[in-house]
């Protein structure tokens, strides 16, 4: 048994054990209060189609937090990408070529923002909170300015499928999320860049003196974060069937909550993708369950914050 546990590396991580306990508690509560409704196929499906968007935002946040940074511009970047893509697609909704061009343009937007953030933080030396806060304000302004604050809608079915469809009963957004989460896991745990990310988070100066190109690595980190925003943009515009400046702003803080709940150390250096995944399941189970029970979404919002505080308290108490 220990060998097996070692193999999947679960119990070595206290965070993950706590999350599993919390998750079990929520499941038990929901089973008692809601019976079968909570575990019905339709609820599980709706949960798994809602989870990916927050999940991608959490990944975009977490990868920056691993280096001891933060990215406050994720929602603004996402809206910028979706506005760029939407305005290109709607030129000619039926053309496959146009769709490709739109996706490419969205990706290019994300890369530019990521480069800008990375440059400010790594080369100019601005603190990540400030750099991404300024970037957020700037991009939000550009979004409203260039779109005139209007809604862009009318997308082809192919795009809508990416956000609302399913393959063999699995929602497509979940497949996307899974793929990218796996990709990020590979980068973090099996590449030199991943090693560098964890080292920078632990001690940036020491990493630099030991020969890691910290500046270049940081630029990559903020690029990865932005590229995840591009993915979120595709899902978001498909889900809402429209693009508009100011969509999804409430996700910003929740993404930070999900990352920290998932065991990402905000000072950098520690945390794993599997933890974030569990944290997302916890948050989503809680939200869907309370929603089924008819509890106000604002109370849920308060509960999320409360759970994070309790969770951090638990960690401190133990150590």
């Amino acid at each position, binding site marked *: 048994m220990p060998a097996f546990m070692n193999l999947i590396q679960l119990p070595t991580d206290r965070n993950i054990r706590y999350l599993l306990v919390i998750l079990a508690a929520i499941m038990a509560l929901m089973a008692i209060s809601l019976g079968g409704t909570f575990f019905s196929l339709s609820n599980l499906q709706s949960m798994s189609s809602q989870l990916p968007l927050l999940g991608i935002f959490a990944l975009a946040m977490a990868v920056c937090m691993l280096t001891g940074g933060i990215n406050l511009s994720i929602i603004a970047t996402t809206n910028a990408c979706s506005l760029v893509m939407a305005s290109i697609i709607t030129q000619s909704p039926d053309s496959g070529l146009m769709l490709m061009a739109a996706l490419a343009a969205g990706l290019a937007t994300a890369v530019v923002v990521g480069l800008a953030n990375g440059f400010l933080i790594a080369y100019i*030396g601005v603190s990540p909170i400030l750099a991404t806060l300024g970037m957020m304000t700037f991009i939000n302004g550009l979004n409203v300015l260039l779109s005139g604050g209007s809604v862009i809608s009318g997308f082809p079915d192919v795009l809508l499928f990416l956000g609302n469809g399913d393959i063999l009963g699995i929602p497509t957004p979940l497949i996307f999320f899974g793929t990218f989460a796996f990709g990020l896991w590979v980068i973090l745990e099996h590449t030199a860049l991943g090693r560098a990310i964890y080292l920078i988070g632990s001690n940036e100066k020491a990493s630099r003196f030991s020969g890691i190109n910290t500046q270049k690595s940081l630029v990559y980190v903020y690029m990865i974060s932005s590229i995840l925003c591009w993915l979120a943009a595709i899902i978001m515009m498909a889900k809402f069937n429209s693009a508009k400046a100011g969509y999804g702003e409430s996700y910003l803080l929740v993404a930070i909550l999900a990352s920290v709940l998932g065991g990402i150390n905000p000072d950098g250096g520690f945390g794993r993708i599997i933890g974030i995944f569990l944290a997302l399941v916890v948050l989503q189970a809680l939200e869907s369950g309370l929603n089924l029970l008819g509890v106000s979404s604002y109370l*849920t919002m308060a509960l999320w914050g409360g759970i994070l505080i309790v969770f951090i308290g638990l960690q*401190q108490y133990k150590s």
Partner: protein
Amino acid sequence: MLELSKGSISSLLKHHEFYLALLITLLVLGLSIGTEDFMTLGNIFDMTVSSAILGIMACGLFVVLIAGGIDISFPATAAIGQYLMASFVLANGGNFAIAFGIAALVGITLGLVNAILVYKLKVPAIIITIAMLNVYFGLLIYFSNGEWLYGFPDWFMDGVEVFRFTATDGYDYGLNLPMITLLVVVVFTSLLMNKTRLGRQIYAMGGNADAAHRIGMNPFGLNLFVYGYMGAMAGIAAVVQTQITQSVAPNSLMGFELTVLAAVVLGGTSMSGGKGTLLGVMLGVALLAVLKNGLTLMGVPSYWHTVLTGLIILISISMTALNEKQQAKQEA
């Protein structure tokens, strides 16, 4: 003599405040020449009133940042203080002393909760206060059902006005409640941070928490004070906002935290604590106010405001960062 003046000019050039003041002066000059309405008493009056809330909250956040912390939850603190204050005034009447008292007390209480959590949990303050922002706002909107409050008594609607006079443009002006409050708060914060032992201790703790602890300062007490102070400022700003808008909407302050943070860091306050001046913060607030006002007067569509604000923040923080880098190099 020559040496001295040279020294003072070069030390001036090292200061962030100097560049901010220069930028504001240029903006003001340009606007005075470019538009007819900028340099009028009425406009300056309006500009001050509309940036009073920003200024008051900036004073609170400034103190927290100097101490090496950060508070993102204060708009929620303010909203709760505002809601309780308004409910009390609507039910029982009262006066401004009671209104400010209730709101500030609520703010201080919630601020102390933040301080205790930040200190005891030893997790970056930004995480704790983001979580608490969710808790406070979630609970407020849940219990208030998001309902607006209005129909305040006359004394509240009329506010306070002193030194009233009629200007040449035919309108009446005087120091009103937002201006008086802003003035009092700024003077008080300035005295606190520059002239008292407590203020020096806050700077010291932000500069080097370990050293401050070892020479016998009480970091927990200082933490309680700065977050409590932020809460009080949030409560006071909330009363002013209610008086200006004559109504209370539970979500009206949502998202304001980042604007205040922008104003404070624009003024050169360091995010890592210990460095920054209140003068800089006030210049940051003034810059944002003049910029917004100027763009409106010049008929620039409001869409441009955020873009330019963002651009100025990015340029300003980059300059600060480059400056610090250079100084670090010189010292090394």
